[in-house]
């Protein structure tokens, strides 16, 4: 620790801390533009000038590391003049268009000018003209005239993300931030530069001219799109969510970066497909009429076939409080124990192994078990890079395709589809492994602090992971990367989240043993790993009652529809993939008759004839492990996996592989439409060449037995030959309705055949 004095106050900070951060710890605000903790010092803007005893010149607080006994003054005539001078310089080529700038009111330049502003403008010459409203990505506009060349955006993209898509062009006063012509930034992290830009140079195109600081509400929320649950701020205007921004959480060492799939999909809350009317038997009805009818029918079903004839499935996207209300309704009102959660993978993580992002930051080794975090949980990819910036981290990929990538290099172990768990088991079992596999075994067993990112796809891996943790001397933490977004919140609400619970309910429904099925935001046909089972279940069960924001297909299977409020419209608690509970506040109004789940459930209970009192007696944080959900002890370890059945792939067939891709599975969004991947299927380039796929990608037909699907496909060298990668949840090719143990046929499709879903 180093002790120093800033403005007469003494503080001790770790060696190497920059003066600006030491001052911040004392609550002393030193203005900054170019400095950002995630990027480290640059010293370009010079606004952070301070006076340091024994130094003849003013120093930049962002590049000066503390030294024992240092005496710093952050004010006084010399400092004020220095900063005033810098501000004046920044303004000479900066347009004075704050009144029409989206950042007006949220701008560092404006703020500091207000503090230090010289008043009179001495610069009489003409400003340099540059590009305005220059699109640098599908979502980002650049105003070069407003740019102060702090380089935060460039350094973020190049150094932090590792995707050098923005650049500094030119020299001296002609320097600008730019992209190579015709090559806009495509990185899914690009949107962060909007938050990072201290002025109004990088703007959100979807938010452009949408609101002014004084007619918005900016509430603390969490991203609702994937289980990372990034802290964010939602901007509400006229009852609608119009912007999502990152929200740093210094206490968690989190800089508040988001991915664009989360940042630009908030409009799902008013997407045209959003349910805005209640329906009964296919006809619109008032919500209260539907509630009354559903309550009554449910009561009748219970009276006739017993409470266990009613199944309840949640989609795991609502708040903990709402999931809890659903559980109360199922258990206390209906009296059924048939309660479950629809999740897209069959694996069940032993919660004793559940790790945190803190574990990730400290990890010395990371195993990507079936998952490419860049695609599935993008901000975790950034967190991994962040960890690597601090210290060496070994990364291994184990899956049915390459899982590391240029921005996260490591060693890949590619196995046959469906054999991930078996491979991990074999690695742990010793046996005769070749040198490469031996290296993996050694790495996994001996790395000091291991974190496994697991996609949950291969159920047997749970046992192998438990075994791995038991064998290792150092700590082992697992972070499940699969959805739904709040499945751990549902666990907190007491809903069984294991695959067997949901499977049992669907099997019973398919066999005709259920009289009714209640769905809260659940779409089992789309999301359950066995989509055919779910489809049979929904066809067979006499009544399906749906509550949620987007109706599952087929609509005719739904006896009743009750629209609900969603994220941004309610305040409530979510648990992320670490099992961390956090509160999100509402900033928008639910459309039309959509209601929050809690009043909906109490109304249903009343109609059922068994009123439910959901007072404030439920506190998601009570009796938990701090802000993390309670986790059972390690003893509850599942059994060893059975050896997987061999793949049945015939001559000329391809193996089907899948995985989570948020770019595909995020909620429906018109904003995100502009960057939708037209070629979501992926093939090895050699295979693509053989097929004759065009370089930019093209349509292919994927078929199995009688089923045919057409979708866009492109080349990806990370897919092994003979395999076709189909993202999970892709409407064009519902991979969960195909037999993954068997092969598929792939052929070029020059047009979309009739009767095939195409978008």
């Amino acid at each position: 620790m180093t002790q120093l004095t800033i403005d007469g106050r003494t503080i001790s900070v770790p060696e190497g801390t920059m003066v600006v951060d030491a001052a911040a710890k004392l609550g002393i605000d030193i203005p900054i533009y170019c400095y950002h903790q995630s990027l480290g010092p640059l010293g370009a803007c010079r606004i952070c000038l301070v006076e340091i005893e024994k130094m003849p010149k003013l120093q930049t607080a962002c590049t000066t590391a503390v030294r024992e006994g240092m005496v710093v003054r952050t004010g006084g005539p010399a400092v004020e003049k220095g900063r005033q001078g810098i501000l004046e310089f920044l303004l000479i080529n900066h347009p004075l268009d704050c009144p029409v700038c989206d950042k007006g009111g949220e701008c560092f330049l404006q703020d500091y000018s207000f503090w230090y502003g010289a008043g009179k403008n001495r610069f009489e010459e003409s400003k340099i003209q540059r590009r305005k409203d220059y699109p640098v990505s599908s979502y980002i506009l650049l105003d070069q005239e407003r740019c102060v060349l702090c380089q935060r955006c460039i350094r973020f993209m190049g150094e932090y993300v590792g995707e050098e898509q923005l650049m500094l062009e030119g020299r001296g006063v002609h320097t600008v931030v730019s992209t190579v012509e015709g090559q806009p930034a495509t990185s899914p992290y690009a949107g962060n530069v909007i938050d990072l830009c201290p002025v109004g140079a990088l703007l959100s195109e979807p938010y452009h001219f949408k609101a002014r600081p004084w007619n918005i509400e900016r509430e603390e929320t969490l991203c609702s799109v994937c289980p990372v649950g990034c802290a964010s701020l939602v901007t509400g205007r006229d009852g609608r969510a119009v912007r999502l921004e990152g929200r740093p959480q210094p206490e968690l060492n989190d800089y508040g970066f988001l991915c664009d799939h989360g940042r630009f999909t908030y409009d799902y809350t008013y997407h045209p497909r959003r349910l805005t009317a209640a329906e009964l038997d296919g006809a619109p009805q008032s919500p209260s009429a539907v509630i009354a009818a559903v309550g009554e029918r449910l009561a009748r079903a219970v009276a006739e076939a017993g409470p266990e004839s009613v199944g309840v499935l949640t989609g795991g996207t609502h708040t903990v409080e709402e999931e809890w209300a659903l559980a109360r309704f199922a258990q206390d009102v209906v009296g059924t124990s048939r309660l479950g959660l629809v999740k897209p993978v069959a694996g069940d993580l032993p919660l004793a192994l559940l790790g945190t992002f803190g574990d990730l930051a400290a990890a010395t080794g990371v195993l990507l078990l079936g998952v490419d975090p860049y695609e599935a949980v993008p901000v975790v990819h950034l967190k991994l890079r962040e960890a690597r910036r601090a210290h060496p981290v070994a990364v291994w990929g184990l899956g049915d395709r390459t899982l590391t990538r240029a921005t996260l290099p490591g060693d890949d172990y590619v196995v046959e589809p469906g054999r991930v768990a078996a491979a991990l088991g074999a690695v742990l079992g010793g046996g005769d492994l070749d040198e490469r596999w031996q290296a993996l075994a050694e790495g996994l067993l001996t790395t000091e602090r291991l974190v496994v990112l697991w996609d949950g796809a291969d159920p047997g891996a749970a046992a192998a992971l438990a075994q791995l943790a038991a064998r290792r001397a150092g700590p082992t933490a697992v972070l499940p990367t699969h959805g739904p977004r709040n499945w751990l919140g549902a666990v907190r609400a007491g809903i069984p989240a294991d695959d067997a619970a949901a499977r049992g309910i669907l099997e019973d429904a398919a066999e005709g043993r259920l009289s009714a099925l209640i769905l809260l935001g659940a779409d089992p046909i789309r999301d359950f790993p066995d989509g055919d089972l779910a489809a049979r279940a929904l066809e067979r069960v006499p009544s399906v009652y749906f509550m949620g924001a987007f109706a599952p297909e087929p609509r005719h299977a739904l006896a009743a529809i009750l629209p609900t409020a969603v994220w941004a419209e309610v305040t409530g608690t979510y648990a992320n993939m670490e099992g961390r509970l956090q509160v999100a506040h509402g900033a928008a109004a639910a459309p039309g008759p959509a209601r929050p789940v809690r009043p909906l459930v109490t109304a249903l209970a009343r109609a059922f004839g068994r009123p439910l009192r959901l007072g404030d007696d439920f506190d998601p944080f009570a009796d938990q492990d701090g802000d993390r959900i309670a986790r059972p002890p390690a003893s509850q370890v599942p059994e060893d996996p059975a050896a997987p059945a061999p793949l049945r792939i015939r001559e000329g067939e391809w193996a089907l592989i899948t995985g989570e891709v948020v770019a595909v599975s995020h909620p429906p969004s018109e904003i995100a439409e502009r960057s939708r991947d037209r070629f979501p299927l992926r093939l090895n380039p050699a295979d693509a060449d053989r097929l004759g796929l065009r370089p930019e990608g093209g349509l292919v037909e994927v078929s199995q037995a009688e089923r045919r699907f057409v979708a866009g496909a492109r080349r990806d060298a990370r897919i092994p030959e003979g395999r076709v990668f189909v993202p999970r949840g892709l409407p064009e090719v519902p991979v969960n309705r195909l037999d993954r143990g068997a092969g598929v046929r792939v052929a070029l499709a020059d047009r979309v055949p009739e009767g095939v879903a195409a978008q």
Partner: protein
Amino acid sequence: MGSPRPDRHYLLRQRDVSGIHQLAVYREHGGYQALQQALEANQPDQLVELTKASGLRGRGGAGFPTGMKWSFLPKDGRARVLVVNADEGEPGTFKDRELMEGNPHQLIEGMIITCFAIGAPESYVYIRGEFLHGYERLTAAIREAEEAGILGERVMGTDFSHRMFVYRGAGAYICGEETALLESLEGKRGNPRSKPPFPAVAGLYGRPTVVNNVETIMNLPPLVLEGADWYRQWGTEKSPGLKVMSVSGHVNRPGNYEVPLDWTLAELIEAAGGVRTGHQVKAVIPGGSSMPCMPASQLDTPIDYESLVQAGSMLGSGGCIVMDETTCMVRAVARVVRFYRNESCGKCTPCREGTFWLTDILDRLERGDGEMSDLDTLLDVSDNINGKAFCALGDAAVGFLVSALKHFREEFVEHITGQRCPLGARQYDTVNH
């Protein structure tokens, strides 16, 4: 009066021996004897001590004692790198170009001696992109040296091996600044780096690095042969030795002059044939355009580092620009400030925006469109740049301006009151304007 002029050239040896850029000629005249002696008779530390004892100071601009710079290298066993700064771009300075074109083997010899002294298996010359001829001369000389066993494995049959590389810049004055140079040498934009870490700790490719000027390094061969006392016979206690001064502007014989560091400016100008016949000196910039100018009244100032600082200027890189009474100081200043505007790398705010602003004001003044308040603005803007920029280019940009406003303020005022240049100087403007 300063020391007597040396009887021969020690650096500008091409002046005495024609064809000395060729290995054979260079060797005939004692070339590479110093290297042989250094490798065979000296320990590396002794060479560092010799350099310290000689009092040799860096000729790139800052005048930092060379031996001391070498001894800052961390003693952690890592291989060191020598980078020779041949980016010479300081307006008024043209010595390194002539030295490299005319006497490249002495640079190579000096580099190998230095590398042996500091423990560097590799060295680099970062040569200004415009120096095509110098580049060709230097690479040809390196090839000759390699073929003769002077470079490469086992230099001159000893255990010391050495590889030398020449890297061309591509038109950017800032790449003369040592950390910008290293960035450029690593294939990047020439934006200066933060210090710390200093190049001595983490320089080229993160290795411990010494950056020295061409002229600095060329002092090594005679120094090894003749010794520190020989070197100290010239100059002053703190500024010993000979310096190649580039003299240009209104003198009769512009050119490079290898002179003792205790000569006065007047003596130097005399050596260059005196001020243009029929004219008088008005002002002199003694050390390149980054340095403050001095009025004619200060011509008897000796050119050693200390005396020039005392007189309000600096020796810098030794580019002495002589201006006679026909020179419009406003125009001269406008020209120099525009240079810094054009050459600012653009990284930091004060230099990038400040030089832009100053240029605009100065152009206006020169056109006769200035106001009295502009003079205060010029000084205030200069003050807001000075000491606040990221690297020394910012300070360099205002040195001449501030000094000219001090010594020739009335000339600026005349431009304002008369609404025109009193000397009738016309500004260059392209035809399309």
